[in-house]
Structure formats: C-alpha cells, structure tokens
C-alpha cells in the first residue's frame, strides 16, 4: 500500500514535537492527550467556561481556561489559543476535528507563531477547503467527480436554472462545507427557495462563509472513504477504506472497515485515486478522501477531509497503528514509521450522540448522572464525558465513540451489540438503543448499506415498549411522589452494572 510521489523541493528540517496543545474538547481532546501520554509528551488542554472540570481538562498535564461557552469566544478564538500555547510553552498544536481543524488561516497562524501545526500545510487545507476549487483540482488529477456548478449567488432563480440542467434530485452544498452543515437535498423545484436560504444561512453560521453551490444528487450511493497518510519526505500511502454509509442529517453514526462492498479490484482503484488526490495538493499527515460509490460500481470524489477523522479508530483497529502518534511524528519531520500495512479483520464504530432518534434526532441536553462504560476484549470506548458532565447546547452532541474489532464482520457486530448493552447513560437521552437496532437490522447484517439506509429502514422509529416499561412507570411515579430516602448524607450514585440484567442473546432490548 505504498506509492511514492517525488516532490520538487525537499521539506525544510522540522524539530521533533516536545509539548502539545490540543485546540479542542470532548472525546477527541481526550484521545489525543492519551497518545501524548503514551509518547511521553506533556499535553496542554484548553477549556471554555462550560467545560471546566470535564474529562479533557482533567486528563491533560496542564489545562488553560480560554473564555466563555460559545465556541466563537473560546475554541474558535485563534488569539486565545495562541496565547495559551505561549503561556504553557507548548511547541505544537493538535486541532482535533471540527472547530479550527480545517481552517487554513489558523494553521498558518500557528506556524507564524513559531509553532508546529499537527496537520497538513495551510496550502493543502485551503486547496481542499474550497469544495469548488477542490473539484476542479481533482478532475485535473484524474480523480472522478460528480457533476456540479461553480459557486452561485444565493438566488433561487439561478439555482432553479442549474437544477434543471443537472436534473433533480440535486444537493445544495457549502463551498466551505463539511459534516453535513449547510447542505440541503432538493427533490422538487418548489423546495429550492427555502433550501437555498437555509443552506446559505447555516453555512455562514457554521463556517463564517455562506457561499453555496449545486451538485447532482446520487440516489442510494454508499459513502466509502480512503484513509491516506503522507510525510514531508514525499511518501504518500493509504490505509485502506472505511464504509460510512449509515448517516442521519448527512452525518455518520456507524462506520466500519473494511467496506463490505469493496473487493480487491475496486479497492485498488479507489485507494490509488485517494493517493493521487492527496499527492495533488502536497498533502502531509493524516487525511481522508471521501467517495460516493454508485450501485453500478462507479465512484466519485466527494471531498477531502484534511484532518483526523472522527471514525479513525476503525482504521486503527484493522491496521494496528495509532494515527495520532503517526501525526505527531510526521509533524516533527520524521518519515512514515510504517511500510506496507496489511488490513486484518474487521472493525465497527458507533457514535453515541446526545439526541433523540424518536423525535427527529433532536439534540438533547442534561447532566450525566450515571455513566456505565463498556469494556472487554476488542472493545474501545473513546469518551469525552464522565459522571457529572453537563451536556449543553453550545457544542456538537457527540458524547463518545464505541468501536469493536473481530476476525470477521459478524464477530465485530455481535461484540458491538454486547458493548452497547454495557453503555449506560442516565441523565441525557442518547441514541444507544437506535444504534443497537441498526446493528440488528437484516440489511445491516447483510452489509447492504447506503446513505438512505436510515431513511428507508428506520423512518418513524421508536424504542419498542417492553414489559419493563410498566415497572419503570411505577418506579418513576414513586420517585416523583416521594423523594428517595438517603442514608447518612448524600448517598453515592450506584454503578449501573447492577441494573444490566441477564443477557438475552441477539438483542439489546
């Protein structure tokens, strides 16, 4: 899985990373801090007023307050992050994902401050960050792309004309986009006006850039992406693919590697295209080239995410690598530490969100009173919460990621079901039972996933009522009527393990 692309100019020497500031929060900050620990590197967390005492701020060697809860005044405030780096003596910044991770100006500001940005060069972020320019670049590099317009003024008439040319359904996308924000699928001409206004507004709010464009919308494609890795010495490799078709609101909730739909020939073609895409922008570090895989077997470049991906653990499971470690080493100027990597076994990830799948995935807030974390052989729980954590409205509702590994897909799947059952959150509504239902669905078991999977199989889903509902109703009524007696002051909250009950094979409910 190695493809060397010579570069015209040798990279200037870079000093090894010595101390890392993590410009992020939640599970990804915790995950990066853990790797720093394992590498013997001191870590610096930053936290907003809403996150004081949260796991990422407690786990780091040092934690620096950077302002109020709104991200604009804390996690997106470049000058505050740079001041925190200077105050702590950190010589490198890891952006995680989201927030400033794909902001070329931030990467440049970090470098201008004399620090190492643990990520790609600002020029590569900028090249891929403008989705319209990136498409053109990919076409020139011989990577297939979906038919689309250039950036259009947010005028419904312009979009209507373009849609007529491309043919419905179409999708409005943010030029600065990612993560489904500022994105609208439109199936009928009379839906265009509201969708154009909404997409432009959402794009402006999410990215500070309201530019949008129109693309032909492929029906029921799979979302398959290629993990690439490059160093500063001209080597670009791929680490296989991930299948991420199970999406709600255009955001992934279940991912796996390898893809059940990709055989050796397709894999060779897709991974080669991924490597070409990365090489075309002079990429360095970990990146992901996303493709839509049509049912007819053709694939199209969707976008490149110039950062560590949320779902990177499944790649770590099947390759045996720590991608954050490799990021830090490459940022310090080292050549890739691994050669040809063989993908072994199968891994699945489920994203635990604070949201209510029975009510249109509405984000849910609250306080985590009790948390049961899953564990066991080939089980990994990347969590940003602990008992007592407050889940507010200011940030992404991702609470934790659960991933499992198996020699086969079925082994990873059943292991995931067992681990989901051990994942107990009291105090915030989560999508846990929904995730379990997805993993138990015959179409998922068969590997027949596509981006409309949830819309087709899970529209109107509600948690099935069981005999426990009656008992739960009585207990709740009692708790409402009479406060629970406490023995000698505040009784400690119990471990949730006790309430797991007996294992019923093949089902979480």
């Amino acid at each position, binding site marked *: 899985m190695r493809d060397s692309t010579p570069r015209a100019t040798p990279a200037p020497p870079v000093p090894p990373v010595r101390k890392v500031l993590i410009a992020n929060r939640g599970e990804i900050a915790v995950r990066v801090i853990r790797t720093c620990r394992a590498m013997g590197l001191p870590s610096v967390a930053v936290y907003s007023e809403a996150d004081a005492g949260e796991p990422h701020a407690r786990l780091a060697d040092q934690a620096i307050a950077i302002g109020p809860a709104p991200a604009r005044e804390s996690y997106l405030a470049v000058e505050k992050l740079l001041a925190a780096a200077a105050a702590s003596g950190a010589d490198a910044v890891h952006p995680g994902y989201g927030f400033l991770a794909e902001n070329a100006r931030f990467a440049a500001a970090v470098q201008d401050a004399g620090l190492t940005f643990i990520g790609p060069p600002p020029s590569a972020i900028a090249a891929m960050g403008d989705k319209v320019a990136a498409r053109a670049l990919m076409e020139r590099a011989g990577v297939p792309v979906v038919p689309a317009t250039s950036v259009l003024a947010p005028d419904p008439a312009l979009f209507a004309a373009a849609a007529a040319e491309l043919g419905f359904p179409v999708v409005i996308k943010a030029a600065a986009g990612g993560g489904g*924000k500022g994105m609208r699928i439109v199936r009928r001409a009379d839906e265009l006006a509201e969708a154009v206004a*909404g997409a432009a*507004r959402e794009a402006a*709010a*999410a990215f500070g850039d309201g530019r949008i464009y129109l693309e032909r919308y492929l029906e029921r494609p799979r979302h398959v992406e290629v993990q690439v890795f490059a160093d500063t010495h001209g080597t670009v490799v791929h680490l296989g693919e991930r299948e991420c078709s199970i999406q709600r*609101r255009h955001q992934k909730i279940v991912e796996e590697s390898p893809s059940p739909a990709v055989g050796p020939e397709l894999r060779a073609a897709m991974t080669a295209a991924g490597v070409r895409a990365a090489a075309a922008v002079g990429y360095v570090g970990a990146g992901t080239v996303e493709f839509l895989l049509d049912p007819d077997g053709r694939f199209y470049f969707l976008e490149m995410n110039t950062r560590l991906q949320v779902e990177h653990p499944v790649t770590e499971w099947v390759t045996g690598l720590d991608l954050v470690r490799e990021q830090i080493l490459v940022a310090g100027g080292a050549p890739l530490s691994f050669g040809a990597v063989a993908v072994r076994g199968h891994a699945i990830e489920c994203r635990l969100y604070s949201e209510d799948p029975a*009510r*249109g995935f*509405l*984000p*849910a*807030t*609250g306080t985590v*009173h*009790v948390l049961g974390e899953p564990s066991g052989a080939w089980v990994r729980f990347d969590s940003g919460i602990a008992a007592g954590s407050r889940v507010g*409205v*200011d*940030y*992404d*509702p991702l609470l934790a990621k659960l991933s499992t590994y198996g020699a086969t897909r079925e082994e990873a799947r059943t292991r995931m079901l067992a681990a989901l*059952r051990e994942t*107990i*959150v*009291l*105090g915030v*509504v*989560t999508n*846990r039972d929904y995730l379990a239902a997805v993993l138990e669905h015959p179409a998922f078991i068969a590997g027949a996933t596509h981006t409309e999977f949830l819309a087709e199989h899970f529209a109107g889903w*509600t*948690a099935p*009522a*069981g005999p*426990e*509902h*009656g*008992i*739960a*109703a*009585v*207990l*709740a*009524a*009692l*708790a*409402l*009527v*009479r*406060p*629970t*007696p*406490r*023995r000698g002051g505040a009784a*400690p*909250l*119990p471990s*949730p393990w*006790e*309430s797991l*009950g007996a294992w019923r094979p093949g089902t*979480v409910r």
Partner: protein
Amino acid sequence: MSIRKTILVDGLPHLVEAHGRDAALAARVDDAPLALALVRDGAAWRVTVDGRTIAATVVRDRDAVWVALGGVVHRCVAGDDTRSGGAASGVRSPRVTAPMPGKVLAVRVEVGQRVAAGDPLVVLEAMKMETIVSAEGAASVKEVSVVAGAAIESGQVLLVLEFT
C-alpha cells in the same frame, strides 16, 4: 401512600396506580395488576416482582426521572409535564413549543398571518444544527412569543396558533 398518575415512559403514556408501602406495593399499570416490593438505597433500588428481584438505578432531576432497568435506560416524566414536548400525545396543541433548547434564528410569521400545514414558523438552532418548527395544521397566528436571537428552553412556548 396512594398514587394515581400518568407517566410517559420514553414518550409512551402509562396510567400508574399504587397503594401501600415500599415493602408491599399493590400497583396497577394501565389497569393490569402488578405487585411489587422494593428497597431503596439512594439511586440503587432493588425491585421484587413475581419472586424475581432485579436491580434498578433511579435518578430524578428537574426534567425527568431516569430509570435503568434490564440494561435499558428509560426517561420518565409526569404525563401533564409540558416539557415532555407532547411527543406521544398526537394532539394538536395551539401552543407551539420548542422541541429542544437552543437559539431562535428566525421567526417566519407575524401575528394575524394565515399558515397552512407544514409552513415554517420558527427556525431554531442548537448544537450547530438548524431545526424548522412547522405548523401542524391550517391556522392563524394569534401570538408570537419569541424574537430572533432569543435563547430558549425545551418546551418554551414559541407562538400560539388558532386552528381553522
């Protein structure tokens, strides 16, 4: 102690009646008898039903009672609690409430305006995602209770409709 209450368990209503002490409770759930005994120790409850004792974790906060039972977490609220969002009621309410906490991005209607089913009323944002609150039926707008930019709680009244 005697209780008669409608409890929404994960949005589904159940009528609960219960008499007696923790050690010997005679309950009815939706008219089906359920005899149980329980021992409470803080949030750790032990419930005996039909000679079988199971552990439950029960935590009450200002929004709900959270009950973990048999490996499943249930969110329970009193049936008359408006913060439940009316998820299971299926009844059209003239009072349009926020389905989630967050911020009002835009108010799309004015007092006196006529709306049809599905017309957008208010655009909300939470956790960087937009949600459009739409009219459940043909109505006229009687009252608008929020302005763009306002921070809102879940269940807060956004506007009042008069169905036509």
